[in-house]
């Protein structure tokens, strides 16, 4: 049980109908790890994420959470698995007819028995954690794109999920906010033992937070590399991975940016 991975992908094929996006994706993510999915634009990172949270079904292979198959689970089991997910969509996915505070408090109201003022307190905390203190009563259309993203993040964290799925969380954020986001991810991992699955292009962020990374290659439609990004950078022989991790050949990627 001890070295049971929290998430396990077993030879998963991602496809839209007949169009196979990615073949044979395998990975094991331990509890409390930050797992980064990287790769060029359009290579299927979001698709992989959607398959993992059950918005799509893999064409082949299996996905396991705590050793239990997610795909073969019956409805009740699956629901109890899905309750432990928190998801940030690429565009934020906020409910536009609700204020930011309502966006976060709705899951709390529906899935916990907390009293109203406790919910209000938690909403305040979550918004504060993403740097949106005081924006409780704004509607999504009244804040900027980056702020919507952060509010989406706060909503994903609303129920203190066991696994957080982030689709490009730092896209559209300024460098300072983006660094705070990295800190937030690390503090979630360290304090609450949250497992984080994250799609990102930000090399800085990858090197700062990733315990494990997977590189999806557009050309061969397969996984080109798996492992800690620092090790990958040091050891990889694959030109595509190397190019990605060094920003197309620039030296010292982590500092150059």
């Amino acid at each position: 049980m001890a070295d049971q991975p929290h998430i396990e992908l077993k030879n998963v094929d991602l496809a839209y109908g007949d169009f196979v996006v990615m073949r044979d994706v395998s990975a094991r993510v331990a509890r409390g790890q930050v797992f980064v999915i990287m790769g060029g634009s359009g290579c299927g990172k979001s698709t992989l994420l959607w398959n993992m949270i059950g918005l799509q079904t893999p064409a082949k292979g299996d996905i396991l959470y705590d050793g239990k198959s997610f795909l073969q689970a019956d409805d009740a089991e699956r629901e109890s698995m899905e309750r432990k997910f928190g998801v940030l969509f690429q565009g934020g996915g906020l409910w536009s007819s609700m204020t930011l505070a309502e966006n976060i408090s709705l899951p709390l109201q529906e899935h916990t028995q907390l009293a109203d003022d406790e919910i209000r307190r938690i909403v305040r905390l979550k918004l504060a954690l993403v740097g949106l203190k005081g924006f409780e009563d704004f509607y999504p259309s009244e804040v900027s794109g980056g702020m919507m993203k952060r509010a989406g993040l706060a909503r994903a964290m609303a129920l203190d999920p066991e696994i957080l799925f982030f689709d490009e969380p730092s896209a559209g954020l300024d460098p300072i906010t983006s660094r705070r986001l990295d800190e937030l991810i690390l503090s979630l991992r360290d304090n609450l033992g949250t497992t984080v699955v994250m799609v990102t292009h930000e090399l800085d962020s990858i090197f700062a937070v990733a315990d494990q990374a997977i590189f999806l290659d557009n050309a061969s439609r397969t996984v080109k590399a798996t492992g800690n990004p620092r090790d990958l950078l040091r050891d990889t022989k694959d030109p595509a991975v190397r190019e990605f991790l060094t920003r197309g050949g620039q030296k010292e990627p982590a500092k150059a940016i």
Partner: protein
Amino acid sequence: MSHIVTGTFDSHCALRGFTPGGNTGSDLDAPTESLPPPRVDFQSPNAGRCVVRLSGDWTVKSTGRPHPAPDANLSSNSTVAFDLNDVSDWDSALLAWLLELLIVLDQRSIRYQMETLPGGVRRSLELARAVPERTDTPPHGETSGWLARVGLGAQRGWTATKHIAEFVGDCTLAMTSLVRGRAQFRRADLLLFMQEAGAEALPINLLISFLVGLILAFVGAVQLQQFGASIYVANLVAIAMVREMGCIMAGIIMCGRTGAAYAAQLGTMKVNQEIDAFRTFLFNPIDFLVMPRMLALFLMMPILTLFANLAGIAGGVLIGIGMLDLTWLEYWHQTVHALTFKHCAAGFMKSFVFGLIVAISGCYNGMRCPNNAAGVGQATTTAVVAGITSIVIADAVFAVLFNIFKF
């Protein structure tokens, strides 16, 4: 202190099932009764120092036993320290509570020792306090008294009127450049819209108009039979359909069908910033998006009306022959005799106008849609309601005008 951060890790994760509510009993629903309740004690070992001692289970799961209010009888010259050694488990509930307490302490300018908090808690709280609170009110503002609301309503009405006038003006300008052959839209768009507003809308138009003609004939037949004037059912149906009902029914159907679709299409495009994208490429969105739709309806509406008239008369024929024992020939003669050029022209003229009304109402509401999903719904509703209302009002105006000019 560190055991809070690391020691309870496993129990922590196992406990976090997040399904306290509801009856979906999953294996993760740990029995909440076994958890020690969250408690807080304020202890003052000596003057000038206060220890906030927390104990028990401080998670979102410890439900039914509300966390104590983050407030205390603290004198402003004491220094607050924290003792979290007896906290068995915690998550955001604890962080949220502490954040609130710190705000209270800050407000009363009571000093506190962050360093007495465990590292993980402290870092999370520091992260939460890194960005100062934004204090301006949201743009949608407060609701006010009824007098103010009436005033605001009137102002909004006036602005809306100006906007509509502006929109109609823009459309007119676009129309003139269209007439001068400098249209800026794609021909394929126009053909597609014509197909959608024409051929695809025909069956529903035929069905409804046929039934309307049938109903008119039936009501008329029952009355006219009493006077032995049942042949006049043909006049009744022909004139009512051609002059009024044909174009009105077509207008109302197209408003619910195509006007609503236009509002939803343009509204969604607005939300996705597609309309802004047209602007940045120096396309006039009116030219590019509104003109083909408007033109399609303007051209198709008379044709739909023509078919609607025929279907309505067919409904009359069914009653005339089936119920009143008239012959084909009689009915035909009577109909042709009843329909003067004026009746036909009146209906035809109105159908153009109704087409424009439907297009304007759909496109205007779509183009001015607020930037959210609810806005698209609102725009669609308004497009249909305003469109149908305008059609009926316009018809009334036509009736008055025709009467004045003896048309």
